[in-house]
């Protein structure tokens, strides 16, 4: 029952706050924080249980039966789940505590806590699921929480649009996920992970002709199709190209949820899903290639955009897109453990960076444009130093957690064949950009002369303890998670363990040296450009104007979607409604009515009420009958 309590405690907190939030108001944290912290303690217990070799899975209740379909809600606890539980509850607890300070005085204080409690519940149920449908249910539930929390400040139009956009873009991905799920059920007759994995091996050779209904022939392996469809869901949830567009806009939400949902946990659900379904993906090299390339492209695209953004949260958001690309790429190359390892370290340092941004934003009265910051390191020392730790980890500076996980990831990727080597090269270039933009952020925000609005400049101060404490704890984790032996802990989960053999080889040492060098070079570059030569950025931007514009405008992906999909859809709907539904279909209905009325009017002419007319009619009728009878 301990296991069931982990998600149920936050759920209880959600129910209490959801129903009585109106009365609890500014004491909401007294309900939510203890629930999540106890959850965290229980997750810690589970972690040590699992580390001791204990694995379990058990059903909770039967959700739905229909014919041969039999779906239950249940838990499956293994090493992968255990580390995810720990990540989710840790970050969630810290974000809950941080929220006390960040959202202090907000009119939706209790509502905010109830939603993040609901999110924590959903995310925990997602990682503990023992079947694909439960995963999907909570996959959408976390999406709902994300939607509600992005739109928390519902009087801001930008926040509302961002919320709607996030939900709909995710729906597009989930459309594929749903079809994949149906194909799993259709092919294997079960949605339970354990049964799926066994049956997948047996149906490895089966093909499906996807062009069959159109008379063509294009045989695709069933497993490939399943993996690709399910991956569509991950593309949406984990903000991979081309469905990455919702994540940066999601930064309209309050910063604590950017840290919790849009950096550390929910967006990593796609990576988790691919890792969870590793036994399926391993059977389809085509799907794996697609996954790896998608991850690789996302990694580069995210980093190139992050280079020029001026909103501090958007820089970190695009950095998240890019880092998620690393993880997905690793999974696609079979290096699941490496992907998961980076997921965990990233969870710590990225949550730290977002919460750091939050501190800055609060200190500057909701200013997010880094061109109006600068020189904050003395005024916000705790924020500054923890932010530097987070940035070092993101840049892969030696001995931080990001250093270990990124090196591990790239080394594993290198050993995964030619595609892996190409992607590793891209990964190294991206590492350079990553270090550069993260320290651009540090230098522009915290160093140099102050560009802070003079109204606020005097009373910029460090926020309350509830906000700085999580920063310090996360800074410690940003170092510490590199030393916990996570990949070794996870490796037994994944049969292939790509790249493990290559460890210690010459190539791997070379990659590690290169990656470290890239990180240091990036930091040095940022120092040179933003500290030593502050005039240089503007000159570079002018010199490379088209590239700069493209990066600043996020490669115009939003504009393209707007022109090709969004506007035609709405225009088409209005046009179709007015032309077809009102004119043609309803016109036909009213036309029938009019025709009948007209026919009635015509017939009415015969009823003139004059006997002569009727007599004439009778005579004519008689003549017609007479003629017919005698002459035909």
């Amino acid at each position, binding site marked *: 029952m301990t296991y069931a309590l982990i998600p149920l405690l936050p759920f209880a907190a959600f129910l209490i706050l959801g129903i009585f939030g109106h009365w609890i108001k500014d004491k909401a944290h007294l309900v939510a924080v203890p629930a999540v912290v106890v959850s965290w303690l229980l997750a810690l217990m589970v972690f040590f249980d699992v580390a001791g070799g204990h694995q379990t899975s058990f059903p909770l*209740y*039967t*959700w*739905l*039966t*229909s*014919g*041969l*379909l039999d779906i239950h809600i249940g838990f499956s606890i293994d090493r992968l789940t255990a580390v995810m539980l720990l990540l989710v509850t840790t970050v969630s607890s810290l974000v809950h505590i941080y929220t006390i300070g960040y959202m202090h005085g907000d009119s939706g204080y209790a509502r905010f806590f109830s939603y993040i409690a609901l999110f924590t519940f959903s995310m925990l149920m997602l990682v503990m699921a023992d079947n694909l*449908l439960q995963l*999907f*249910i*909570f*996959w*959408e*539930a976390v999406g*709902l929480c994300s*939607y509600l929390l992005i*739109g928390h400040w*519902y*009087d801001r*139009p930008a926040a*509302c*649009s961002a*919320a*709607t956009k996030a*939900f*709909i873009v995710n*729906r*597009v991905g989930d*459309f594929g996920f*749903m*079809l994949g799920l*149906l*194909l799993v*059920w*259709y092919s294997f007759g079960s949605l339970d992970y354990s049964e799926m994995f066994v049956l997948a091996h047996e149906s490895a050779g089966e093909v499906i002709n996807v062009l069959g*209904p159109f008379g063509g022939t294009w045989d695709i392996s069933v497993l490939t199709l399943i993996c690709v469809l399910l991956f569509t869901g991950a593309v949406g949830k984990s903000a991979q190209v081309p469905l990455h567009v919702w994540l940066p806009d999601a930064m309209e939400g309050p910063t604590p949820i950017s840290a919790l949902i849009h950096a550390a946990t929910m967006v990593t659900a796609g990576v988790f899903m691919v890792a969870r379904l590793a036994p399926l993906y391993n059977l389809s090299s085509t799907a794996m290639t697609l996954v790896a390339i998608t991850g690789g492209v996302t990694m580069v695209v995210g980093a190139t955009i992050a280079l020029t953004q001026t909103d501090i949260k958007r820089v970190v958001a695009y950095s998240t897109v890019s880092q998620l690309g690393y993880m997905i790429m690793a999974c696609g190359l079979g290096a699941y453990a490496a992907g998961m390892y980076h997921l965990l370290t990233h969870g710590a340092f990225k949550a730290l960076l977002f919460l750091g941004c939050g501190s800055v934003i609060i200190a500057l009265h909701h200013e997010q444009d880094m061109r109006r910051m600068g020189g904050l390191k003395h005024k916000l020392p705790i924020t500054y130093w923890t932010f530097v730790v987070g940035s070092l980890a993101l840049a892969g500076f030696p001995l931080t957690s990001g250093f270990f996980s990124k090196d591990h990831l790239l080394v594993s990727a290198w050993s995964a064949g030619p595609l892996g080597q190409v992607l590793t090269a891209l990964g190294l270039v991206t590492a350079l950009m990553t270090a550069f933009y993260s320290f651009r952020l540090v230098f522009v925000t915290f160093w140099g002369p102050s560009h802070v609005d003079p109204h606020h400049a005097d009373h910029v101060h460090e926020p309350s303890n509830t906000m700085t404490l999580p920063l310090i704890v996360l800074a410690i984790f940003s170092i510490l998670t590199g030393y916990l032996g996570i990949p070794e802990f996870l490796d037994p989960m994944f049969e292939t363990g790509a790249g493990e053999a290559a460890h210690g080889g010459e190539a791997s040492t070379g990659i590690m040296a290169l990656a470290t060098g890239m990180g240091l070079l990036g930091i040095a570059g940022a120092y040179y450009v933003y500290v030593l030569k502050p005039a240089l950025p503007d000159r570079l931007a002018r010199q490379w104007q088209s590239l700069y514009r493209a990066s600043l405008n996020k490669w115009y992906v939003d504009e393209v979607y707007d022109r090709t999909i969004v506007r035609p*859809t*709405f225009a*088409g*709907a*209005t046009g*179709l*409604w*007015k032309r077809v*539904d009102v004119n043609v*279909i*309803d016109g036909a*209905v009213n036309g029938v*009515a009019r025709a009948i009325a007209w026919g009635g009017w015509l017939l009415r002419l015969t009823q003139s009420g004059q006997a002569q007319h009727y007599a004439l009619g009778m005579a004519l009728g008689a003549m017609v009958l007479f003629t017919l009878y005698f002459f035909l």
Partner: protein
Amino acid sequence: MSFVTESTARWIALVATLADLCVALPLWWLFDPQTSQMQFTEHVAWITSPPIYYSLGLDGISLPLVLMTVGIMPLCVLASWNAVTTRVQGFMAMVLVMETTMVGVFVALDFVLFYVFWEAMLIPMYLLIGVWGGANRLYAAIKFFLYTLAGSMLLLVAILVLYYYGGHTFDILALSQGTYPASLQTWIFLAFFAAFAVKVPMFPFHTWLPDAHVEAPTAGSVILASILLKMGAYGFLRFSLPMLPDASRMFTPVMVVLSIIAIIYGAYMALAQVDLKKLIAYSSVSHMGFVTLGLFVLNQQGIEGAVLQMVNHGITTGGLFLCVGIIYERTHSRLIADNVGLASPMPQYATLLVIFALSSLGLPGTNSFVGEFLVLVGTFSWSKIATAVASLGIILAATYLLWMVQRVVFGVPTPHHLPKLRDLNPRELATLVPLVLLIFWIGLYPNPLMSRMHQSVTNTIASMSREKVAPTAHPSAGVITPLLVDSEEPLEIQGGSR
């Protein structure tokens, strides 16, 4: 009318509908899910020649629909409490007559009795729209009446033909066990289709619905959407499938295509609407497309999903129409542009509206997801492409509903409406909260409801292959026997005999 004051009329209607609910609710526990037989039957001779009976009974398909009907009606009375100010007595009387006829349709086991209920329902509905409706009410009322009446005429002809070919009986169960020549089945199927497809409404017979909804008073819209639309789908399931299995199989591709067009087209039309009621009306076309889709893929998951989806649509769309009624009472406008930014002045209302919208777009954890999921599972074994296209409707549903929510719930309210935007009063809460509880109950734990359907649906599918199967038999899902093509069978076939 002066014997009964307006307030007394309201109370009589409320007490009567609540009493009906109290009588019907125990059926949930008394119902035996282990059998596909009709339960709680009543059988009284009505007319001896031809043999027509007052014959009633419930099975796992009608049970949820009956419970939904009697559950919705008290909410309709409550919703009309202050909204209806003219001829209150007449209004409440019509609502109560509606309840009688609607429950009658779901429980009638005699075809003539069914037809009487089916047609009788038109009159009070016509009056509800025509007397208590909006500005363009007469057009809408006549359109509704003539449209459905035209379909029903052919239903009557079909019933009479079945009487002669099915052994001179109007007993629905007996007629369901007869076998009819394929060519005759085709004609009867088309006649049934005329009646049922208009009622559902299936594309392209849907244009009466937006007009009827927009002009009807709130209670009328709720009754129309939640219950009346289910009659057509119920007709397909109770009559077309068991009585005309060969024709049903033959028409499956047509029905599936029409359903999918309805899903996509209805959702797409909803995207263009500026009137809340029209938006929900078109969303109904889309959602009912899932129901007919599930019915005509002819397998366990599809049909169970369809039945569940009927109930779901009743709960969710009923809730949405109640919400529109509540805001209409305040701002006297149904236009989205007039009702913006309700979250801050009306937080409870906003919360409930969002829940209904999320349910309507099929969010997992709410009722509609379960129904849509089952329908899609059923459809998938019939055609993967059809499933993929139908699933697109789910993306569109998210788009039109969330865009509606973004405009209505979020944002800043119009200043001159602000004083009118009071949050929900206890009466209004009482109309919405029960529906919300049902949404989550069915969404989180649908199995008790589904387990009551299994035997009846299994039996329906089994009866389509015209073999007597034991109630415990478990036909494999998705198996469709080949089409019967022999049309030279002798016409006089065994009918059931009591």
